[in-house]
């Protein structure tokens, strides 16, 4: 941290560009629904636009891109554990679906 400049200072222009970009990406995700895209194309586009938006918000608006690597690691790595939870719950949900199906068919 330097003494002369306090905190995170960047040109306003960056924020306006990211703002515009988020608008465009949101419009794209809305159009995915509007044009009734289905199947793999739909899911992959939704996830792609979501991750891009999330990335720009965290990196630029929340200034994570300019933080030291120690803070990036401390904040961005722990949520990866959640992938394990999501994986387990997806397997469990499928299992419940199948057992329910089997029970109701009998």
């Amino acid at each position: 941290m330097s003494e002369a400049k306090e905190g995170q200072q960047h040109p306003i222009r960056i924020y306006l560009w990211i703002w515009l970009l988020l608008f465009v990406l949101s419009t794209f995700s809305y159009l995915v629904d509007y044009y009734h895209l289905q199947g793999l194309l739909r899911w992959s586009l939704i996830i792609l636009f979501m991750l891009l938006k999330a990335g720009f918000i965290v990196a630029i608006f929340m200034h994570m891109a300019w933080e030291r690597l120690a803070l990036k690691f401390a904040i961005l790595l722990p949520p990866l554990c959640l992938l394990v939870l999501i994986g387990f719950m997806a397997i469990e949900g499928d299992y419940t679906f199948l057992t329910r199906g089997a029970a109701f068919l009998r």
Partner: protein
Amino acid sequence: MAHDAQAAAMSPLAQVAGDFSTDKQAFSVPWGKAMMWIFLLSDTFIFTCFLTSYMNVRLSTLSDWPNPSQVFSLHIGGQDIPLILIAIMTFVLITSSGTMAMAVNYGYRRNKRNTVLLMGATALLGATFVSMQAFEWTKLIMEGVRPWENPWGAPQFGSAFFMITGFHGLHVSAGVIYLLVVANRVRTGFYDKRGSYEMVEIAGLYWHFVDLVWVFIFAFFYLW
């Protein structure tokens, strides 16, 4: 400054190891900012638990899941426009994030007037978002959506909807109050006396997080 030059010469991983293992403060940011990040990390876990449980009930139900595109459509000018209210809410929240980012910037430049105005605009947009959400809830409740049933399909739809959007709306409402408190302190010169405008950036972190969570809710609940 010597520290920075030394750090720049190190490899990134050696810098991390140094930050964590040396007998000094681990994160080179104000402690309030580090704590806000850690709070947001815990909030990430809470919202992921909600979204994961929503995924689980949606996977395991035998009934059809109501089509959000139709459920959240509005009848405007003689035709149904799918998800239009949700799209507008998304744009409102993104705009509020943009004004907040600029408020933080003007705060560090010691431009009190612009900081207060932009934070006020952010709070106003946040309040608009909550109002639109209240309208959406009212509409769905009138149509017979309850946490245990709804007219269109899987009964779990209502509980997932009210829990996820309700908890997010609560965050937005709390954020609006938080922003107004901080904006008022900027106005009265509280941070000039303290000599630091980092509290504006910390409030900004919270506000951007609320926008961030909405990105995931929009993708997984409304578009999926």
